[in-house]
């Protein structure tokens, strides 16, 4: 049972400030002081906002608006009955001038369905109604208010907050993540310093919903001001522990932070709730307080605009959907300071480079980073791996990146999975330390993508096979059914002939005789040629024997 600390052990160690540690980790230069000195600024409104209709992990929603609609700030643009869907809202007032594809805030830069709003500059908000006495409200009302406000994890993954909060499993620790371990980023730091009280309100609401035994607010020790303000904001709550965590990347990873605080490990195929923990980002808590107390939807977030190619690095309140170019313009971005144009969305360790400056800020965007020429130099071509295992020493999940690299590169995906490829959290610590400058994470991502695609193909093939076989079977059974019908019909005829005995035979003979008579009559011009029966019988003459039989049968029935 080593490693799974009981609630009391955790509490005891928390109270004396003795935390655990996670293996590996790196200490890149922080550079947070570039942007964390000044208060979060409000920017002038952009001309357009581009709101992607899906900004979370889960299911797409349906559009509520059409081209040409006027929308107000906070008005929902999408809705869905599905619990895994999260709506998006207009982040300012204006006219919907396009609904279509726009480059997405995604590493690929591929287009995604996006609502373009041409702002009218008035920033008029829709009327809102908060639940000020949330303690008296039902849990269902609070959860749906969180969902309707469009809140999904602001820390990076974008998991729907209302789903996380709607847990029925017992929770020991509600963990509030104020770690912000990525270098450069100071959005959460500034938010905690300036809005500690509102974050505290958000925590209170989540506490009311989840009813944990304890709340742990974890902040890295490189943010003493945030630690102080949060401690003051939470001082009346004896169940809240504000904890200073030693600075080490990636201490802010969900699983790593849980390990640091409780020494518990989230099962590889499980969720934090399985070990009695739930985690929220401080930004999410802030948004929850807005949603419940004021009824406001999530339409803006704090974004750090930094890097040494930015002359005025700062934190700003960015409306969801604001194009990155607007933030750069308003922070004095100097492209001439860059060796080549390069903008990173997110931090230097896990962020992705943008393909277009028109890409919008989304709910999970915490940083726009514009490095100068000598800053964050792009690596040269990789050299051969010398198996020095610096990567293994840096890996926070105790993988063997050197082996994963070997098998991923060789496309030996079965073995790569044996080495737990899918437990990689893509934190980039391995590639950061690699002396051969191998883009390790990139190899893992490609391998994971290939494996997923292969699985998908396999599933599709299986589905196609089943459908093909089902169709073959159907065609076969249809054919059989047809044959069976013919067989039965033939049988019935024979039976009819036999059961009626000579009578039927007589009838046939009589019919034949009649036919003969008609035929001979036809040959005689005096006979009435418009006689219906005659023409029918004449036709019968031309029919094939089997059809004659069926025609005969019809006659027999008429009898």
């Amino acid at each position, binding site marked *: *049972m080593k490693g*799974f600390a009981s609630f009391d052990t955790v509490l005891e160690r928390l109270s004396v400030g003795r935390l655990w540690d996670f293996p590996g980790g*790196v200490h*890149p230069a922080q550079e947070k002081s570039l942007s964390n000195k000044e208060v979060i600024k409000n920017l002038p409104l952009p001309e357009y906002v581009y709101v992607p209709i899906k900004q979370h*992990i889960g299911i797409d929603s349906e559009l509520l608006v059409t081209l040409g609609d006027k929308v107000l700030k906070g008005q929902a643009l999408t809705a869905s009955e599905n619990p895994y869907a999260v709506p998006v809202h207009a982040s300012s007032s204006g006219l919907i001038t396009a609904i279509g594809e726009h480059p997405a805030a995604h590493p690929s830069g591929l287009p995604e369905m996006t609502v373009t709003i041409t702002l009218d500059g008035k920033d008029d908000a829709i009327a809102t109604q908060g639940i000020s006495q949330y303690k008296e409200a039902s849990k269902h009302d609070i959860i749906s208010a969180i969902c309707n406000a469009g809140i999904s*994890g602001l*820390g990076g*993954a974008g998991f729907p907050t209302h789903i996380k909060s709607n847990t029925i499993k017992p929770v020991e620790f509600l963990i509030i*993540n104020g770690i912000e*371990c990525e270098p450069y980023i100071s959005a959460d730091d500034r938010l905690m310093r300036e809005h500690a009280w509102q974050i505290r309100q958000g925590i209170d609401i989540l506490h009311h919903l989840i009813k944990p035994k304890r709340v742990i607010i974890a902040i890295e020790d490189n943010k003493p001001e945030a630690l102080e303000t949060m401690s003051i904001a939470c001082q009346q709550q004896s169940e809240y522990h504000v904890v200073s965590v030693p600075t080490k990347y990636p201490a802010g990873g*969900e*699983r790593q932070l849980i390990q640091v605080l409780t020494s*518990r*490990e989230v099962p*590889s*195929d*499980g*969720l934090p*709730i*399985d*070990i*009695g923990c739930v*985690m929220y*980002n401080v930004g*999410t808590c802030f948004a929850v307080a807005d949603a419940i107390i004021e009824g406001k939807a999530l339409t803006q977030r704090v974004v750090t605009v930094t890097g040494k190619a930015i002359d005025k690095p700062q934190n700003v309140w960015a409306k969801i959907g604001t194009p990155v170019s607007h933030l750069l313009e308003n922070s004095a971005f100097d492209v001439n300071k860059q060796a*080549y*144009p*390069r903008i990173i969305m997110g931090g*230097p360790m*896990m*962020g*992705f*480079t*943008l393909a277009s*400056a028109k890409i919008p800020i989304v709910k999970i965007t915490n940083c726009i980073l514009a*490095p100068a020429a000598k800053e*964050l130099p792009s690596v040269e*071509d990789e*050299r*051969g*791996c*010398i*198996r*020095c*295992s*610096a990567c*293994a020493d840096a890996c926070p999940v*105790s993988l*063997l990146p050197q*082996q994963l690299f070997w098998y991923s590169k060789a496309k030996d995906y079965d073995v790569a999975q044996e*080495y737990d490829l899918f*437990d990689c959290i*893509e934190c980039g610590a391995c590639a*950061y*330390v690699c*002396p*051969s*400058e191998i*883009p390790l994470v*990139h190899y893992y991502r490609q391998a994971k993508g290939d494996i997923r695609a292969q699985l998908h193909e396999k599933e599709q093939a299986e589905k196609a096979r089943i459908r093909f076989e089902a169709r073959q079977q159907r065609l076969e059974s249809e054919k059989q059914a047809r044959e069976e019908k013919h067989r039965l019909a033939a049988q019935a005829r024979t039976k009819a002939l036999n059961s009626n005995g000579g009578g039927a035979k007589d009838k046939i003979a009589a019919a034949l005789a009649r036919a003969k008579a008609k035929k001979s009559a036809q040959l005689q011009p005096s006979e009435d040629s418009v006689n219906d029966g005659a023409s029918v019988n004449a036709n019968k003459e031309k029919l094939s024997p089997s059809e004659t039989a069926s025609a005969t049968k019809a006659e027999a029935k008429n009898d």
Partner: protein
Amino acid sequence: MTKLQVASSPHHHNQRDTGAVMRLVVYAAIPGIAVQTYMFGYGVLVQLALAVVTAVVTEVVILEIRKKNTERAVKDYSALLCGLLLAISIPPLAPWWIIVIGTFFSIAIVKQLYGGLGFNLFNPAMAGYVMLLISFPVQMTAWLPPVSLTIQNVGIWDTIHTIFTGYTATGFSIAQLQATVDGATMATPLDHIKTALSEGYIISEGLNNKIFNASMGVGWAPVSFAYLIGGLVLIKAKVINWHIPASMIIAAMAVSAVLSIYDMSTHASPWFHLVNGSLIVGAFFIATDPVSASTTNRGRIVFGALIGFWIIVIRTWGGYPDAIAFAVVLMNLAVPLIDYYTKPGTYGHQNKVRNMAKPSPAKKSQQGDK
């Protein structure tokens, strides 16, 4: 119109590349080389120069043939380091062609033919050493006594003359140079003890010789200590992990302790094994070659311990006085197996029984506030 460039994260990289790592190892070897030069004469430096030139030239030529980026490969200093390790392992006055053949073999055959840096199965320097030892046993064991014990004062010119012609400028042969003041031929401490044991002496009698000073080989022990300092610096600078040196030295001392407890008279003490011969330089500089060693930390403990074990076994019962090269090459073969069985436990895979709630039978979570 400028375009944004895209790349995969991380965009941050620490500035220690392969070249820097290899350079640090070279720097760390400097104290050892200095002491070795002081103790055994300029031959060490001459061999070093020959080895480095051969190594780099061989590497460049082969990379040109393989149409690889020569400049980048040379800048990783791996060839230089390989030549260095081989040069400090051979007798300082060995003929020039010994080191040239050995280095060429190391780089061309053991390293490049296997695919270059990172793909070699064996430690190039040690495989080269083994090849030399088997092919040219006489030249490879002709160690001169430490400078303080020789009669002839071999200057730098004499050294170069000897390495290239076999005789000093004044006409002495290596065999003559090996003689000490009293005319007895001198061998390395390990050689000496081995010979003494085979002649029926016991350890304490063997140690009663002027090449020993309290069971430490004169000249040899200080070299070992100098390399120890360099090695500790390497651990401190996180160039190498402690696992291999520690487990190798502890295992070697443990095995020799058991043997010497069993029979003091025919088995030398752990201390003797530690300070004489190449155990320390081997533990810190040779067995730690990352490419051919085990790549997991647990595996490194096994790898190092088994090398230590083989060193004592071969020193005790083998035909050669020292064993680092054989032990390392032998264990290189076992590395894939060691690696396979010493995978570290991945996060989230060890606590199947510890879950307080039943794990949801669900998909891998991508959820997480960063």
